[in-house]
């Protein structure tokens, strides 16, 4: 195991070096690689950033403040006085190894995932890193859109983007200089929120790749995420792009080349090649299957109209929750908006909107019921989830789904399908394509819709808690010692 240490003492002529030597000997005896930075009087020889990045744990054997300790931020840390390192170096080495093995970086600090855990743990750490950087975008974008609805009425979204709302057709704003005139201040808020939302998937993909490959992963990850959006692959496409970009960048930046070429690797070669590879795969390999799957789903859904209203409601609900803004969700939403085009109250629209409100609400409820099953950043996402869900901003659930897709997606599909089916069963309708709770006046049978949403919310929360309790050890991330 690779370790680094810093030794330091008041005078800097004796104990600093004795501790360094003792730790090096103990590490070698235990079969570990240890690099020591002696912050003494014989000149400082700082550890290389790469060595710090590669180290799985850090030992501070110091009686005075370690200089530039923020270089080690987020690393599992063992601290002691310098004498303890001289007298019992093997204890510190053993502690550092143990700390490295049972610790995961905090989401906020993670620039690099430690390689301790198994494949599943590492995958989860990568995803959590991406999610933790994405959450502020969800909050900023979602709350701006909710504010726009609150002050401007839900038709503000249609005024900006175009479409039919309450039987009125809007052209939408194509020239942004007319935005304020056409849609007012709420329109401006909505536009800002929508742009922030468009960054969800690029940020998610970029920082998943960043977690895997450090800085070289960022470019292919962000570009791959943008392309996932461009081909309509949604956040699941973003997960694929991020993991792929991280893997490609990781291996590219570890190819050893002649020294002359080495210098241009990080500036030119790695960004160029990794982005070209990831972009090509996203456009040519992922893009067309997504498009043809969407076409097939759309046709299939059109044929489903004869299957009975409740069946259609269940299906639309499940599709809304499956990928939250991704291709399947889009098919269901577009189908529902299509039924609205005539300006008549639409049952499918009511089912889609009600079902789309359920995932963020259900997960918000789950974080309140069993806080311990969620990470800190997930709990914060849960707090925003109430308003996002109430505003029919299904994306509020993406942080949860991206961090733990196999447990979260089936749970939210179950809850959303129940709501979709119930909404259809009671014969509710909607005249608005979006807006959630803010367009309750345009909903037919609003109280029953609210009841259906409440039932779906509870089903989601219960299912996700049950799913998370399976293999719970994986979902509780221990809080590491921060530096």
């Amino acid at each position, binding site marked *: 195991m690779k370790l680094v240490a810093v030794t330091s003492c*008041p*005078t*800097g*002529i*004796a*104990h*600093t*070096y*004795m501790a*360094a*030597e*003792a730790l090096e*000997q103990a590490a070698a005896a235990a079969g570990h690689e240890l690099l020591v930075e*002696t912050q*003494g*009087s*014989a*000149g400082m020889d700082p550890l290389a950033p790469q060595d710090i990045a590669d180290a799985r744990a850090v030992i501070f054997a110091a*009686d005075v403040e370690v200089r530039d300790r923020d270089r080690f931020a987020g690393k599992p840390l063992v601290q002691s*006085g310098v*004498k303890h390192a*001289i*007298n019992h170096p093997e204890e510190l080495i053993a502690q550092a190894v143990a700390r490295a093995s049972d610790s995961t970086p905090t989401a906020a600090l993670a620039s690099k995932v430690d390689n301790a855990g198994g494949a599943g743990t590492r995958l989860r750490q990568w995803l959590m890193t991406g999610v933790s950087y994405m959450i502020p975008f969800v909050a900023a974008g979602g709350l701006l859109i909710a504010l726009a609805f609150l002050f401007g009425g839900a038709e503000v979204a249609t005024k900006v983007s175009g479409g039919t709302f309450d039987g009125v057709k809007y052209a939408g704003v194509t020239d942004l200089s007319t935005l304020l005139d056409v849609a007012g201040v709420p329109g401006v808020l909505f536009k800002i929120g929508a742009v922030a939302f468009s960054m969800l998937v690029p940020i998610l993909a970029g920082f998943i790749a960043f977690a895997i490959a450090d800085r070289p992963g960022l470019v292919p990850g962000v570009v791959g995420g943008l392309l996932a959006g461009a081909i309509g692959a949604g956040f699941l496409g973003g997960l694929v792009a991020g993991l792929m970009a991280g893997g490609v960048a990781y291996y590219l930046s570890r190819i050893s080349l002649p020294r002359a070429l080495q210098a241009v690797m990080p500036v030119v070669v790695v960004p160029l090649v990794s982005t070209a590879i990831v972009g090509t795969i996203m456009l040519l390999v992922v893009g067309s299957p997504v498009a043809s799957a969407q076409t097939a789903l759309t046709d299939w859904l059109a044929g489903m109209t004869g299957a009975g209203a409740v069946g259609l409601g269940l299906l639309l609900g499940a599709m809304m929750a499956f990928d939250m803004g991704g291709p399947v969700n889009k098919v269901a939403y577009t189908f529902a908006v299509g039924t609205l085009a005539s300006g008549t109250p639409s049952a499918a629209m009511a089912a889609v909107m009600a079902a789309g409100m359920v995932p963020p609400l259900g997960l918000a409820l789950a974080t309140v019921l069993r806080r311990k099953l969620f990470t800190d950043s997930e709990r914060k996402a849960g707090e925003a989830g109430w308003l996002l869900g109430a505003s029919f901003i299904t994306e509020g659930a993406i942080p949860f789904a991206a961090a733990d897709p196999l447990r979260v997606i089936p749970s939210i599909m179950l809850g959303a399908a129940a709501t979709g089916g119930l909404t259809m069963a009671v014969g509710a309708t909607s005249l608005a394509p979006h807006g959630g709770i803010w367009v309750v006046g345009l909903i037919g049978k609003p109280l029953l819709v609210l009841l259906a949403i409440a039932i779906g919310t509870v089903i989601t929360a219960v299912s996700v808690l049950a799913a998370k309790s399976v293999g719970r050890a994986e979902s509780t991330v221990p809080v590491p010692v921060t530096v």
Partner: protein
Amino acid sequence: MPLITEDLVLLDIETTDRAAATRELAARLGAAGRVTDVEAFLVDVAAREAQMATGLEGGIGLPHARSAAVVEPSLAFARSADGIDWGAPDGPAHLVFLIAAPDGGGAEHMKILAALARRLVHQSFKDALAAAADSAAVVKLITEEVIDR
């Protein structure tokens, strides 16, 4: 100038008092012209010792200071049969190293002291010093182990 010479080695120091032993060693450094003001140097050593006793497990006493009174990086060595309490938890020190470093000395000088400190954690080095027959053997050991490495 070498780090240590024979006149800086006290093979059978009699006192069992930390301050007295430090003073004896410091006096040798003064006599050799390596420390200009023994009293000032002792104040600096005592100040460092007061921060935290420099005794180490395994019978080592390691008084040291960077001091304006020091001319050359130097080591004075004493061996005590009875042991001198140097604040280590496992018993008195039998090997005492007084390290004198010039204040603001260049990094090159300090590297020798760093190398000495690194050797001190090796049991073989301590055993050899404990068994050394005379002052010349001590000087030879330290010179070979620290300076010629």
